[in-house]
């Protein structure tokens, strides 16, 4: 065994040996990433969802066959499907989707600015935290529909009334997400920032905000869900004459006892909610978490082991 000679006492490791030791160790330690082909990954993500939808439709179909309710109240899945298909070809539906989405985006944007400003202010000031920290959480639990009577008194039947409630629904979640996110930044990263000579803007840009990002995203996602719900409630209650929206379509379908059209609109609302959640927030979240190595589920065993080892190392350190 020639390697032993260099390790005898008094002898030493040459620079060459050291380089090879390190390279060998690195190869042993480094987890090789093996990924299945794209088609297989897509299919394995897709089929459980399709199966779940299939089961739901089947239950609905059975309820229809059993005639639990008259068919003009509970239409068949195929009738709703046909109605939906027909509606998708009309400009009215798209106009309604457009105006609802415009309200949703405006509401979310305003919530982002207000919630963001409040969140940042609270993380910067101990006094403000004591004063309004728990109030923000309290607002979050307030059902947004309870705001509408006041909103209508304040703003009459208008876009502002809807916006007011949407923002009250979403802003507290966003503010809370920012507060929790900044609180979750490991103190050691701030110390690193200080020793690296970061000034306050740099500290926020390069350390605090990226470190807080996973938690902040959860707040944004929740804020979106709240704003979408508040918006639907608002569009049912605050019907502005002459404007078409998904909410007014629901209301009119009910008034005309058009169950098929009503359910078709509900499907549209559900699908928009799912699309925004998975395409916008889901994608953001995946990117953020994967980058940070916080997603364990899609790792192979070797990589899991490395992550576990690092977690153990971290816990030993504390």
């Amino acid at each position: 065994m020639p390697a032993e000679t260099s390790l005898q006492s008094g002898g030493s490791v040459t620079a060459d040996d050291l380089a090879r030791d390190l390279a060998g160790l690195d190869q042993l330690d480094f987890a090789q990433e093996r990924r299945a082909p794209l088609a297989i990954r897509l299919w394995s993500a897709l089929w459980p969802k399709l199966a779940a939808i299939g089961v739901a439709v089947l239950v609905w179909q059975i309820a229809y066959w059993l005639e639990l309710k008259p068919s003009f109240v509970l239409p068949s899945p195929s009738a709703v499907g046909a109605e939906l298909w027909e509606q998708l070809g009309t400009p009215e539906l798209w106009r309604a989707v457009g105006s609802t989405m415009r309200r949703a985006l405006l509401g979310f944007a305003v919530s982002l600015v207000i919630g963001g400003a409040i969140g940042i202010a609270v993380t910067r000031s101990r006094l403000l935290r004591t004063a309004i920290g728990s109030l923000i959480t309290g607002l979050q639990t307030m059902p947004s529909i309870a705001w509408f009577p006041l909103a209508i008194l304040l703003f009459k039947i208008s876009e502002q009334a809807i916006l007011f409630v949407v923002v009250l629904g979403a802003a507290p979640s966003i503010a809370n997400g920012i507060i929790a996110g900044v609180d979750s930044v490991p103190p050691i990263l701030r110390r690193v920032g200080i020793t690296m000579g970061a000034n306050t803007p740099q500290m926020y840009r390069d350390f605090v905000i990226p470190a807080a990002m996973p938690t902040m995203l959860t707040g944004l996602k929740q804020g979106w869900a709240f704003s979408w719900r508040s918006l639907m409630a608002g569009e049912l209650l605050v019907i502005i004459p002459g404007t078409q929206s998904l909410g007014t379509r629901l209301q009119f379908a009910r008034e005309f006892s058009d169950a098929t059209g009503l359910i078709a609109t509900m499907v549209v609302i559900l699908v928009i909610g799912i699309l925004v959640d998975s395409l916008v927030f889901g994608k953001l979240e995946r990117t953020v978490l994967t980058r940070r190595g916080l997603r364990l589920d899609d790792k192979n065993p070797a990589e899991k082991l490395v992550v576990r080892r690092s977690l153990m190392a971290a816990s030993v350190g504390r």
Partner: protein
Amino acid sequence: MSGANSGLTEPAQHIVNGRQQVAAARPAVEIVDVVKRFGSGDSGVLALDHISLTVEHGEFLCIVGASGCGKSTLLNLVAGLDAPTSGTVGASGRVALMFQEAALLPWRTAIQNVELALKLRGVPKAERSERARELLALVRLDDFADKRPHELSGGMRQRVALARCLGQGADILLMDEPFGALDAITRDILHDEIERVASEQQLTVMFVTHNVREAARLGDRIVLLSSRPGRVVAQFDVPVPRPRRIESPDVSAIAAQVTISLREEVRRHAR
């Protein structure tokens, strides 16, 4: 080669009490009569009690002590993260800290972590990528430049952290049990690696550890701190030529000597 001391200042053999005077150059780190107290009154804790220490340029100083000896507090003072209650702490050079955790930014790749240090130091954008790659090559991780911290092992992360410290332009490296969480073989190899980098880059190192053998393996000098409050109890020169092996009899002999003093110090706290 006489290790980290070569060429920079006068030879280190006359450092005995940490009070040695070098004629011209200011020492890299000068800690004079430092007291650090946390809190006040009866509930206050005296962490450091009149500590004086001098670290020469290019010296590798290991600080050993049982728990509660204020080792980390001392490094925080030198790094400027905290201020002494009384006394003065001076560092002539750029200071960087390494912790037991690598504390890399998990959303940045290895090279981006090093680049951030360069950016905050004011290195122009055009130069950053190349300089960062050079620093990673120095710790032999250039092949892993685009990996994120969670994809790297603990030892690799500590090497990225070392490259980042160098990216900060550090000439004084403060290490707070940096290899404490690593497995034995990785630690052994990283001892060789830190010894090589410190001597190549002519770094001054203050290395805190509770592992006496590690201290004897790495240090030009070992300072033993007492616990609660932290005081300098004893200092040991380590006149073993470099590169060293942790299992060499010379290193073991010094480790044994330090261990005896450390045990005595721990025993003092028995009731």
